[in-house]
């Protein structure tokens, strides 16, 4: 899925972006730069400022301070770039009495887009057979997919999707992940906010972490997630060997910790492959059969919780 094709000019960049509502600061001196062509996951807890930041990029909300550019134009003049941006922000909003296809035609007319690709767009989002149904009869998942179709009108260079899987059932979440994954393969820049960290981890090649309106991390996903393994997960076949294995490894001088019915051996700078080989040999010599011997890497969830909660969890 990773497809970073970053070119020199960023698709969007903001510096010092700030939004205050009275005494409440929602976005606080926020910086972000997305290279063109990346699929960026915009991750943060509820109320972190994700939607407000996206709304400022889309000209819906005026920044209190800061500056930025989207597709080369200032965010002070959204009309200069919005015809090249597709967006789904907050919940999808359409006219309930119109069909899905009629809604798309209306949005195409307002934006002066060619309406010819609408059947193909409905097909892309899995609504080919339901385009003639009234929007009010759509399920939540269908509404979200129609929102994606509307965002794709005009074949935008940049897609901004605000929690597209929000409120969907597990099957819907999987479908949406697949859809976003397909969009990621089209070469356009995508900024997608999500609470589903596994979705972000699987689909995105760029990460922006935000909390209380401030940037915690931004950069290539591989820089955050692709680090060396920090542990080796070891599981004995027979539960009664668990303690013996712990004693064996401790006696070898390994830094071992039991964790959810398995043992985790800290790598401590050594090569995880070499460590796995020696642990396996020691267990074999002691007559202990292992069913799992795998490297443990820090997940996005680990990073996220560590950054958002300062490692409190």
């Amino acid at each position, binding site marked *: 899925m990773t497809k970073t094709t970053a070119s020199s000019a960023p698709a969007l960049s903001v510096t010092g972006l700030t939004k205050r509502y009275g005494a409440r600061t929602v976005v606080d001196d926020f910086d972000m730069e997305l290279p063109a062509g990346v699929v960026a996951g915009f991750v943060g807890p509820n109320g972190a400022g994700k939607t407000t930041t996206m709304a400022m990029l889309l000209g819906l909300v005026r920044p209190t301070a800061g500056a930025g550019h989207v597709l080369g134009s200032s965010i002070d003049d959204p009309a200069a770039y*919005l015809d090249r941006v597709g967006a789904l922000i907050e919940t999808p909003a359409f006219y309930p009495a119109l069909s899905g296809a009629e809604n798309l035609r209306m*949005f195409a007319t*307002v934006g002066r887009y060619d309406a010819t690709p609408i059947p193909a767009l409905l097909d892309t989002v899995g609504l080919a057979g339901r385009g003639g149904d009234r929007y009010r009869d759509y399920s939540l998942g269908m509404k979200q997919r129609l929102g994606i179709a509307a965002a794709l009108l005009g074949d935008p260079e940049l897609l901004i999707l605000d929690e597209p899987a929000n409120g969907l059932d597990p099957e819907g979440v999987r479908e949406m992940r697949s859809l976003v994954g397909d969009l990621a393969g089209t070469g356009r820049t995508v900024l997608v906010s999500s609470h589903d960290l596994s979705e972000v981890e699987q689909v995105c090649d760029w990460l922006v972490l935000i909390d209380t309106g401030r940037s915690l991390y931004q950069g290539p996903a591989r820089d955050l997630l692709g680090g060396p393994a920090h542990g080796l997960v070891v599981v004995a076949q027979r539960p009664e060997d668990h303690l013996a294995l712990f004693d064996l490894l401790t006696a070898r001088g390994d830094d071992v910790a039991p964790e959810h019915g398995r043992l985790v051996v800290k790598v401590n700078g050594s090569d995880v492959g070499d460590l796995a080989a020696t642990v396996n040999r020691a267990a074999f010599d002691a007559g202990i059969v292992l069913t799992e011997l795998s490297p443990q890497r820090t997940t996005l969830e680990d990073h996220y919780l560590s950054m958002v909660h300062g490692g409190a969890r």
Partner: protein
Amino acid sequence: MTSVIRAELARLLRRRTLVAIAAGSLLFSVIATLSVFSSAQASGPRSRRGGTTLAALTDAGGGTEAFAVGASFVGFLVFVTFIALVATEFSGGTYRALLLRQPHRVRLIVGKLAGALLVAAAAIGLAEVCTLTVSVLVAPTRDVATAGWFSLAGVGAAARDYATVFAGVAGWAIFGTALAVVFRSAPLALGVGFAWAGPFENIIVDSWDAGFRVFPGQVLGSLIRGGSAELGIGRAAFTALVYTGVAAVGTLLLVSRRDVTA
């Protein structure tokens, strides 16, 4: 802005809406004509409160008198319709979604209003034609001569009635839009609109005649009627222009400056 108008027309001019407009125009014409002809006095002043006179019905403008009188009472309906139309765009999020396609906020709101007013203009024309037709049928029951209705002066009076009714409807539409933009919530805007244009104005004018010349709803009613004993057409038009101008400017300022968070 033309793209917004075209999109709004495409949204509104659907079979169900067209049937509702046709049925509404016919119902309006029957009720207005029967009410006006049955309540017409032999003589007396034209009042915002009262009906018309048989003499006025016999005049060149008599053919569309029922249309003008009846229309002065449906302004409130236009008012709440526009409140509901616009406020629902805000509370339902379609205004926000459309802004992503037409970021010029003033063009979007003016285009949508213009599209709706074009539909209203057609509905008003249909209602006038229907009312004239029903009036021709009802006129003999009150011994009202209809010859003058089809004279050049009659056509002029019909055009004048159309213009004043449309101007009044546009005024109500602007007030409704303004209220919807201020509150951005259909129930809240409708509640305030109902309270103001319904009980408040009408209770006050019962004890304060100057209210006919001051309150926006009463002024628009007089404008639609083509002037009344309490407020002449010239002053009604001027006052309505000032009121709607202030409402329009305030609305556009609010639309262009306020964050879109819904």
